[in-house]
């Protein structure tokens, strides 16, 4: 069987999710792949979920919002960028599933809800999934390139829909909300005891706010639950694939391997590993060089010692990344060399794009 090329993947998939540890350059890779896809004639949107707002910088834009912004590339396919605004996305979901305007107002005014969008860890992930789903159904886009938020754990992202549902499904709070449950009587003592404990520990007001929050949410869980199932289905479908981004440094590789193993344990396969910012390979032969003949011995020593250090480091990096690729049974490995200059412009991103796209 001939292996799919990166270009094949971009042409056949609808959602490419870039995952991996923090600080490895996921955002730049996502932007580059999106540029490459657009240049190849695919109508593409790149979604960044990173609160650090890096993609805007990389694409040379002042702002990218919750709604897709077109980046004029003059490319065969269009390129849009979206930066997730978790607050706005969550508010929109509430409006969508609420039964009445009063319910919308009650939830938006609830202190727990307000804090939820501001502070809850994992909220970025919940809303990212929602946004992906929404954009997936947007006829303007054939392909979504998704940059995942920096998290210690790949599960944060994959688990997001499930976690939101189980949060909304909590038994104790369901019982409190339940208007006339026949189960209420036998359970109420235990429930009251639990609530009393919580009140003693966190203060009664928090319990009241939490109860109010769940009451306000009543009737909306079904909407969220079926949405979570749909989002989960999209992730599991043939249309979605994962690229695992890492740097080839030992510690990062250990974390990346962990991400990869979690993906596999969820039944996802890894279409590509991107080994970003590798120490470059300097090919050639010093002996045929003209300038080296003119250098004093001490300078020659410095140069050769420097080259040795770099080659040694490159050797370790390449071995580690190869081991990881084998271990995770990834379909392919993309090497991206560090150019020493960073990525500062859209041209740099386009260059990176062509090296990613042209790789097998």
């Amino acid at each position, binding site marked *: 069987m001939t292996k799919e090329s990166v270009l094949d993947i971009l042409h056949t998939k609808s959602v490419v999710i870039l995952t991996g540890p923090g600080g490895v350059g996921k955002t730049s890779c996502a932007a580059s792949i999106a540029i490459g896809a657009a240049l190849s004639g695919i109508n593409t949107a790149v979604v960044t979920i990173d609160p650090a707002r890096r993609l805007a910088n990389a694409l040379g834009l002042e702002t990218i919002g919750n709604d897709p912004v077109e980046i004029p590339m003059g490319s065969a396919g269009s390129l849009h960028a979206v930066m997730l605004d978790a607050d706005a996305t969550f508010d929109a979901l509430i409006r969508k599933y609420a039964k009445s305007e009063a319910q919308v107002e009650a939830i938006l005014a609830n202190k727990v809800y307000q804090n939820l969008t501001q502070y809850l860890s994992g909220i970025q992930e919940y809303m990212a999934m929602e946004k992906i789903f929404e954009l997936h159904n947007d006829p303007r886009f054939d392909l979504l390139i998704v940059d995942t938020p920096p998290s210690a754990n790949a599960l944060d992202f994959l688990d997001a829909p499930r976690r939101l549902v189980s949060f909304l499904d909590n038994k*104790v709070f369901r019982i409190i909300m339940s208007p006339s449950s026949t189960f209420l009587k036998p359970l109420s003592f235990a429930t009251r005891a639990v609530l009393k404990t919580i009140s003693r520990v966190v203060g009664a007001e928090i319990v009241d706010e939490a109860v109010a929050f769940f009451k306000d949410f009543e009737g909306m869980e079904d909407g969220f639950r079926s949405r979570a199932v749909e989002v989960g289905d999209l992730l599991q479908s043939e249309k979605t694939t994962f690229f695992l981004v890492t740097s080839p440094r030992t510690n990062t590789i250990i974390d990346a391997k962990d991400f990869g193993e979690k993906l596999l344990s969820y039944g996802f396969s890894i279409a590509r590993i991107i080994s970003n910012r590798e120490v470059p390979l300097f090919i050639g032969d010093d002996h045929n060089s003209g300038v*080296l003949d003119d250098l004093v011995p001490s300078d020659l020593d410095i140069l050769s010692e420097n080259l040795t250090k770099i080659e040694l480091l490159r050797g370790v990096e390449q071995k580690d990344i190869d081991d990881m690729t084998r271990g995770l049974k990834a379909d392919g490995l993309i090497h991206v060399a560090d150019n020493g200059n960073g990525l500062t412009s859209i041209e740099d991103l386009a260059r990176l794009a062509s090296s990613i796209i042209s790789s097998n």
Partner: protein
Amino acid sequence: MIESHESSLLAATSQQVTIVAGKGGVGKSTVSVASALANARAGRSVILLSTDISTITANAEKEITAREEYATNTPVFQLLKAEEILIEYLETHGLASLGKRLISTGVISVIATAVPGIRELLILAKIKQLAQSGQYERIIFDAPASGHLMTLLSSPTGLKDIAKVGLLKSQSDEVEELLNDRGRSGLTIVTLPEETPVSESIETIAKIRELKSIAVNALVVNQRITAPKLSASGLAAIIESGDSSPSVKAYEYVTAREKIADAEISRLIHGISDVEILELPYLFQSNLSISDLEGLKIREIIREGNLR
């Protein structure tokens, strides 16, 4: 060139409690572990806390057991889990059985999810308790990546708005007091001399100052790469020649990276005031052993240097 002079890793942990923060992958654990080891070697009792086990921490913990210099004064490594801290608290207050029920009903996770910052507060409360116990002269907390730092630092104040009584209220007050006490606690931010980490550090420091909470003591620029110095004539010959032999290309690569690092450090110097800026060298290694960490020389970057 940016001037610097050698300093001690101890400078990054001058108070009893130091929170080490920064975005993912910048080397928080490297700095935390190296500082913990330096403190232990200086004869101080030290505990290193973290919320997840990093490779570097796990390796160090294993390696030090075989090292004589830590035999009498062994740094303690401890993992902090919010749920466990809460259960421990309930147990010491005679509420052990209710604690178990909180867990079995899943209420604890709802509360922890619904109440912003409660996990963070529990972790800070544990740190505060360790600080009050006086058991350790240095408490180093390898904090989660910077996205969560604001939640962590704002948790005491944020929760006070919601909780007027109870455990949260009293813990919030005490944690806030510890964070505000510049003699007892401080924050060390770790960054890399690269564009996004530098921009984020500048932003993070501005946000922390807005919170008017913990003092930012030091900013550690990790992996500062330095190109080896050729003679002036040798350098000129190389530049002029456009030679493409591997050793020349490799030299140009390291020089290009050094140039970026210099530019980013000068951006830090101009973007941040009143914070000591330290740097750790880039080691041409993929993995750091405990002896690499012990040998790490931290350098203080001199602000009034001759910046180009």
